[in-house]
């Protein structure tokens, strides 16, 4: 496994995080060491094939299901708006204001 500087650039772009040029070599070395260490799980005996892994549904040992609650209003409309907007960096007319998305 080789984790390259190009991989690091791609990841930081995907994750919306900039790695400064002077941090890059250290981050690269850390990532290589960590990914090298965690790769050892690929040598696990008894772990099933990836096809089985992709189907971790009710038939499998790990039971995964969605938990949803009743879609009912539990508070008065607008009762939390002020407190929530107070944390927003920019607010306009009761809305969170952002940079124009489509130009």
């Amino acid at each position, binding site marked *: 496994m080789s*984790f390259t500087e190009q*991989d*690091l650039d791609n*990841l*930081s772009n*995907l*994750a*919306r*995080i*900039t*790695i400064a040029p002077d*941090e890059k070599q250290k*981050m690269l070395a*850390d*990532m290589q*060491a*960590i*990914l090298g*260490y*965690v*790769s*050892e*799980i*690929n040598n*696990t*005996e*008894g*772990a*099933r094939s*990836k096809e*089985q*892994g*992709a189907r*971790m549904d009710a038939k*499998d*040992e*790990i039971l995964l299901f969605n*938990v*949803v*609650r009743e879609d009912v209003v539990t508070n008065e409309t607008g009762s*939390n708006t002020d*407190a*929530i907007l*107070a*944390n*927003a*960096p*920019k607010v306009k007319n009761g809305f*969170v204001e*952002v*940079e124009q*998305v489509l130009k």
Partner: protein
Amino acid sequence: MNKTLKQLHEELKSGSLTIEALVESCRKTISEKDGDIHALLGIYSEELINSQISRAKEMFANGKATTLTGIPIVLKDNILVKGEHATGGSKILENYIATYDATVVKKLKEAGTILIGRANMDEFAMGTSTENSAYGVTKNPNDITRVAGGSSGGSAAVVAYGGVPMALGSDTGGSIRGPAAFCGVVGLKTTYGNVSRSGVMSMGSSLDQIGPFGNSVSDVEEVYNIISGYDVKDSTSIPEELRDKKQEGSNKKVIGVPWNFVDRKGIDADVLVNFKAGIEKMKSAGYTIKDVSFKHLEKALAVYYIIAPAEVSSNQARYDGIRYGLSLPGDTSIQSYFESRTAGFGAEVRRRILIGTYVLSSGYYDAYYNKANLVRGLLQKEFEEVFKDADVIAMPTTPSPAFKIGEKINDPLLMYLEDIFTVPVNIVGVPAISIPSGKTESGLPLGMQFIAPNMREDMLFTIGKDFEKLI
């Protein structure tokens, strides 16, 4: 603070101690000691403290006081209290004010506890030493050149130096048990799904649990009794009907020890000697010690450092500088994400987001994330098997006593290895407790960890109280 919660309760009830005097003595200790230790990031507003004092007095007056009524508590700073700051130890939330109470906070308020302040932590609970806090390291009260452990280092340290008799932390891979061991207090990681996480900043959602710190097993049990319970607001919460109370077998006394996992390269000699001595004491107190073996336990740390970063990378996506938190301008909104996240997150958080992004990327998903989930399944099965032969499993809490500040911070993998004995518990979901097991020759506390099957915190309390008496 040498008194138990029950003793404090009796004194408050009889009137030999007033709530105001207790709160005042805690605040005095904090103001004397926290300058050196830096366990706290802030004290809650006088308004909140006073309103809880009034509530507690009322509860005593009308006979509705609980054991925790009137007793001060500190919360890890990833737990929301309405109208109060909550930073998660991060610069990105430096000015954030919580808009609602976490479920655990609601329960603590209803129980009449006095919420005193916010405890320091590794940024968003990522770390083993509290060195990743954006607000400076918490020092170990036993030796201020050493770390208090992490990520709930502030919660452990403030109880250890006597600032408050109880605190809450969160445990994703050992973040309650580790600092409890390093500081010399009791820390409980509860069963996954036992305590609601509504209103607690998410880190690794399939791993995170809230739990208490205290000076004794019975104190931790008192706090546990208040905070546990089903909550509709946490979709992973265990429904009441599945919370079978006392089950058969809680009087059995078989302790399983995975000797070949514990007696390993890299474990500190003092830790091993102390652990063996602790096990011997349990044996002489009538417990049966059984050697148990796991095939996949060595893989638990690798599984953890795939699953946790994967979940971190998605949970941290919410910090975008748009709705709340640090916001720096950019030419486009995407550019402003880059600016805000880069400036707001520290090195470890960024590192884990990148690892998580990598293991979830389409080319590597099967090799890492999927594989980790499969091995997780194997480990869960193995624990079930071992619990057929043993009532609890014992391991040291940490492979070393508290290390020096700065010793491991530049080598993340070395730091991760500190979690070797605690992460399997989070991978599997079961409860575990760390109890002080004595000290090294140089006076550093060590911790004994007991692990029980799901929802068997009661066994940890029973065995833990026995263990405490022997130390």
